[in-house]
């Protein structure tokens, strides 16, 4: 589905913000400001931005761990500052500082997250089951990486979604790495989406560095699921030019991944640079406008940081915590 110029600019702004805030997270963790871990998004954030940009406010979505889903939520119009506060263990955190890295934005039907990779799949089935059962018109955007498709629950979810014709987009951000293993070593074949036809689910394979291709794919998948035709799969092929989580090894099995190649990818495959070039070539934006978008975005980290810093560290008494386990 062709994108309008407004849609292209919206995607681009979201990507610039996502990449800016990704590097903000990198700065925070490297200076010891985060309480937990961080998994850099790097140049793999074009699919993440595309997954969120065209959703309705009430569409449930499950962000991917890469870049901790910041791209997925800000592209939905969610202010990510409480999520940063969560990462910094603050009272203002979206989970009251209890989780280190979980998100919760109930107003946008993002209920929570999990540290167990693949936990999203069955829950997405339920979110979509409720949407279909109550004919709300919602669709579910289920984002995850290639590694998660090895979990049995991914297959259970695809089976159930197909069988019940549920409105789920299986949005796979395939960076060809499953933690410290090359996808080729843990999966038979190069494309995760080869699974989809087995369940009768239509699938597209997209260049994950091409922001606008990702955006078009998202529009198509959303329209398909929203029209009641059942689940759809999109596989965005991208790269990971850094370690899995900040500070861990960057190896594939026993092999060190070449630093020169990582640097080359980071430079050559930068989706914001590629998108900016296209916007200028196609006459959608001028260089000055692109520069302005970057300059405007550059102000956001300081605002977020100030918000987090004014909030105290969350250290409530145990009595308050043990009484918060059950809902009334």
């Amino acid at each position, binding site marked *: 589905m062709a994108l309008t110029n407004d849609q292209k600019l919206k995607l681009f702004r979201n990507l610039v913000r996502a990449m800016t805030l990704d590097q903000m997270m990198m700065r925070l963790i490297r200076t010891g400001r985060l309480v937990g871990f961080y998994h850099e998004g790097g140049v793999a954030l074009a699919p993440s931005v595309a997954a969120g940009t065209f959703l309705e406010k009430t569409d449930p979505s499950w962000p991917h761990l890469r870049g901790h889903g910041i791209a997925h939520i800000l592209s939905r119009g969610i202010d990510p500052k409480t999520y940063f506060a969560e990462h910094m263990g603050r009272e203002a955190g*979206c989970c009251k500082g209890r989780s280190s890295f979980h998100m*919760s934005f109930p107003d946008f039907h993002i209920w929570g997250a999990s540290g167990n990779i693949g*936990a999203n799949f069955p*829950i997405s089935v*339920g979110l979509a089951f409720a949407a279909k059962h109550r004919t709300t018109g919602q669709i579910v955007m289920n984002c995850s990486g290639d590694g998660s498709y090895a979990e049995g629950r991914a297959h259970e979810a695809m089976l159930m979604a197909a069988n019940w014709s549920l409105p789920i987009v299986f949005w796979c951000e395939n960076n060809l790495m499953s933690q410290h293993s090359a996808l080729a070593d843990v999966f038979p074949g190069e494309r995760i989406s080869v699974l989809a036809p087995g369940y009768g689910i239509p699938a597209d394979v997209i260049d994950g560095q091409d922001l606008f291709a990702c955006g078009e794919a998202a529009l198509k998948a959303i329209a398909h699921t929203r029209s009641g035709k059942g689940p759809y799969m999109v596989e965005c092929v991208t790269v990971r030019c850094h370690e899995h989580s900040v500070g861990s090894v960057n190896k594939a099995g026993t092999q060190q991944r070449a630093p020169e190649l990582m640097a080359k990818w980071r430079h050559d495959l930068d989706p914001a640079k590629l998108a900016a070039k296209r916007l200028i070539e196609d006459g959608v934006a001028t260089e000055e406008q692109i520069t302005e978008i970057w300059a405007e975005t550059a102000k956001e980290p300081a605002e977020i940081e100030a918000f987090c810093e004014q909030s105290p560290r969350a250290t409530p008494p145990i009595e308050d915590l043990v009484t918060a386990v059950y809902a009334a």
Partner: protein
Amino acid sequence: MTELREISLLEAIKEAYREEMQRDDNVYLLGISIQAGTFPHTTGLCEEFGPSRVVDAPLAESGMIGCAFGSALQGMRPIVDFMYAGFAYYCGSEVFLQAGHFHFMHGSTFPVPMTMVGTCGLGRRVANEHATLPYGALIHHPGIKVCMPSTPYDAKGLMKSAIRDNNPVFFLWHIGTIALKGHVPTEEYVVPLGLADVKRQGRDVTVLTSGVQVHNCLTVAEKLKGEIDVEIIDARSFEPFDRDTLLTSIEKTSRLVIVDEDYERGGFAAEVTAQVMEHGYDLLDAPVKRVCHPHMPIPGGYMEAYTTPTPERIEAGIRDVCR
């Protein structure tokens, strides 16, 4: 006017299902072969409520509980039936790390109202996977409420409470109670979670138990009548657990036997024993005695008959603390 009628424990569960499904459109059933009815508590419900509310799931426990879980987040009130409670172990992550933790981990801002159902217990000689009683493991993990009835009355009342609760509740029923009949009023009632029931009054020793073992303990108590006066408490609910009722009883009897068909190691009996040490040590005149399944896999075949807490083992346990 109360109609005096007796129905089976599974008919009582079905009545709870039917009444709650009539009461709230958000209540639906999801499970493996529940339309046909592997056990009679779901038979006929699909004909009455349709396949969109009595849903047959594929053999995919993680997918099944996830479906319940996700729909609960969206405001539905799913009842997910694992058939055998041991089958819930397929989805340990969902049961132990997600369902019960989700509310707290995300700031205690929204409820997760879902009911999980499964049968458990020894008696069919079909061994560990079908017989395992998961309440010891369940109460170890915060956030999930757990109950098991011993009578049809309690079954209906507890199930209604489970469905209406705003938290994940695992409702267990013991396979040995499948055909048990008892009085169930036609009027609306609930049995609250977290309320134990004194099933028999006595002065000499308190026996805390649950499920089918309530009936074994009642048999033993009758046998010991005139010699040892046994008080029997049916826990009914393992989480929340009604410690007050237990301590009140021990205050009178000063002796405690816990009959628990689950594995002895680190289970409900061990937990209650520790709580009694912490909150009621001075009330005891003898050490707490546990009569549990030994720390070994539940066997199938004929040996099952003596690894379970039998009336003989229960009697020996009672005599042990009453010496």
